[in-house]
């Protein structure tokens, strides 16, 4: 099997400060990778570079496109990259309001992404939007409400529906459960796990919550000061951490 994403030597610095340095990895179809590290460790910078939101200084991010096979998404043209981010890619922001249009109805939020890939039949778009709202456990009678009238957890689920409606193959998630209370987090995690398996999604999840990656991620990458200090199988990295920083991270989690 070929990797879906092949990342080699990605570095990004902000002047003298290092964002992320020389990151390389492969991600295979159906695989979920977690990136953990404290605030400022460069995990969000890396995610932005991978998702094409930020141009790295060096390195290549090769994605296995449906049409042309492996393509470097950094050097491809802007329209091509935009097309990718509407079809094969999805990006779930930490704050749902960054990923949603707050003045457009819930159904409109989901429908917009469908229209971006060419759907034009209103009835079908609405039907698909309602179907997706129910898959993320939002009642059909809320389809015409604006996200601003939703709770934080519902907004986050709406954002996920909006992202997954076009059947992407790779999902980037930036702290998808951050800022939600624990019962809502559990529901969201359960939902994400189901969707990942059902749709055979590959995902890269940035988080500082080790419980989240234990439940969702197959593999883990630990970052500190912009460098990857440890990688491996999620349960191996968490149960038998090798690097001093990872040991500190794992031993700092409060036990309930």
């Amino acid at each position, binding site marked *: 099997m070929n990797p879906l994403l092949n990342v080699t030597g990605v570095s990004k610095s902000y002047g003298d400060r290092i964002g992320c340095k020389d990151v390389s990895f492969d991600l*295979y179809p159906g*695989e979920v990778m977690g990136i953990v590290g404290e605030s400022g460790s460069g995990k969000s910078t890396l995610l932005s570079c991978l998702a094409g939101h930020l141009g790295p200084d060096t390195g290549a991010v090769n994605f296995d496109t449906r049409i042309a096979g492996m393509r470097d998404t950094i050097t491809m043209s802007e329209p091509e990259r935009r097309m990718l981010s509407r079809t094969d890619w999805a990006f779930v922001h930490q704050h749902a309001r960054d990923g949603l249009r707050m003045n457009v109805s819930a159904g409109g939020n989901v429908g917009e992404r469908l229209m971006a890939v060419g759907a034009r039949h209103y009835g079908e778009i609405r039907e698909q939007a309602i179907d997706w709202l129910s898959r993320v456990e939002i009642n059909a009678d809320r389809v015409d409400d604006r996200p601003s009238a939703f709770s934080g957890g519902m907004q986050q689920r709406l954002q996920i529906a909006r992202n997954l409606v076009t059947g992407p193959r790779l999902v980037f998630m930036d702290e998808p459960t951050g800022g939600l209370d624990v019962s809502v987090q*559990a*529901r969201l*995690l*359960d939902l994400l*796990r189901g969707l990942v*398996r059902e749709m055979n999604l590959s995902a890269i999840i940035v988080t500082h919550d080790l419980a989240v990656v234990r*439940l969702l991620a*197959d*593999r883990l990458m630990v970052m500190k000061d912009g460098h990857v200090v440890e990688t*491996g*199988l999620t*349960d*191996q990295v968490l*149960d*038998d951490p*090798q*690097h*001093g920083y990872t*040991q*500190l991270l794992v*031993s700092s989690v409060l036990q309930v």
Partner: protein
Amino acid sequence: MITVDNVSKSFTLHNQAAATIPVMVGASLQVKAGECVALVGQSGSGKSTLMRMIYGNYLTAGGRIMVGDLDVAVAAPRDILALRRYTLGYVSQFLRVVPRVPTVEVVAEPLLATGTDRSAAIARAEVLLDNLNIPERLWSLSPTTFSGGEQQRVNIARGFAHNYPALLLDEPTASLDGVNREVVMSMIEEAKARGASIVGIFHDEAARDRVCDREIDVTGFTPRAAI
């Protein structure tokens, strides 16, 4: 099926004066198809550590751990994941599940992961739960609120859902009553009969004598300096 060859392991505690603790040297064992081998030795001698190394949960410092034709000691994460999905099962002492997921789904999950048809996976899960005397009214509930013994039985059902060619059992009968222990014993015997290689930790001597063909004392793998 399982070959552990001259394996060593140490823990380095970077945040506690970088102390390095050697815990195992020269560990070797072999388990053939249809054989059950018990790991014995006092608490803290490294039984669970060795088992976790075979599962790829702990890294191996040196030596080879062959499960089928994969060397777990050096394998890439995705190869270990595939091994765990199809070949190597593990029943740990503790159940770790996603909140909110119903018991029947928890048990069916390993089968779904191998691509088994959903209704067949659920049917198999129900048979296992029934055999292990988990009342049907609990099947649709999450096991997080179950008693210790019930959780352990759910864990066992999950571990036996798929017919793994190799199985690791960490005290599968520890908190079970007589009836359920008997059920688990016969499940282990059935697994042996279909040719599974099993490595187990059993503190219950009667259980060990009944299902295990050999014992391996892991105290023999403890580094001399640590004694």
